């Protein structure tokens, strides 16, 4: 196994496991940052420079900060020694293990194990832009619409109730 890949995989997995299992929510959010950063490094290792830095910009720089923000705004909600697992956690864990097993078996038994390693592609930003403006112009417009709708929706949902609609 490639040592760089092994290190990044270990880092990402450890970050992800810690992010969903720790008690302190701020620790969780910061471990999530580690997982996101590890994934960004994996994308760079796979020659997807643009996506790698987009991952850092969007996930590490915006989504994770939003999560930290939400945690800081809703903190103090849990008195220290409450259970952190939901009441039906056994069933949830069972489903997760089943899914993980199914995915693992699927990958292990598929033909991708014998897939040849092709030479590294060098995508340029210009090519990505041309694709976005030709083949993918409709999805691009839809994403724009979605983001606008999500932004307006988020503002309306989080607006203080007492003020009411003006």
């Amino acid at each position, binding site marked *: 196994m490639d040592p760089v890949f092994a290190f990044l995989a270990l880092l990402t*997995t450890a970050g*992800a496991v810690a992010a969903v299992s720790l008690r302190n929510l701020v620790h969780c959010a910061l471990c999530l940052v580690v997982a996101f950063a590890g994934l960004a490094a994996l994308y760079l290792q796979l020659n997807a420079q643009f996506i790698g830095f987009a991952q850092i910009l969007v996930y590490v720089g915006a989504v994770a900060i939003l999560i930290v923000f939400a945690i800081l705004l809703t903190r103090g909600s849990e008195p220290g020694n409450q259970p952190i697992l939901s009441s039906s956690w056994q*069933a949830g864990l069972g489903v997760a293990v089943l*899914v993980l097993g199914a995915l693992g078996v699927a990958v292990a038994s598929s033909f991708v194990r014998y897939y040849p390693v092709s030479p590294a592609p060098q995508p340029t930003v210009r090519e990505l832009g041309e694709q976005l403006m030709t083949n993918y112009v409709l999805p691009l417009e839809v994403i724009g619409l979605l983001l606008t709708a999500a932004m307006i929706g988020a503002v309306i949902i989080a607006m203080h109730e007492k003020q009411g609609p003006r």
Partner: protein
Amino acid sequence: MTPLHQYLFLSALLFGVGLAGALTRRNAIIVLIGIELMLNAANLNFIAFWRFSRHPELATGLMFVLFSIGIAAAEAAVGLALIIAIYRHYRTANLDQFDSMKG
């Protein structure tokens, strides 16, 4: 160069961890974190398949991930807005306690 199936195993592992987090934790924010991890696992798959595809110049996997990142950003914004709105109402972010249909 790492073979494709190792990336797929890693991605499956991340998906499993995210799913376990989303299904077992009480706190709504951790559930959101789990969902984000699952989305990221899917992104890793797309990038890995793109890297090993026979036509990487078409950039299909990269495009999918770009759109997926956009959707994830929208999802996080709306999800956290919902969590904050619910927190204002119930004074807690624990999913177990959101059990009434009426405010």
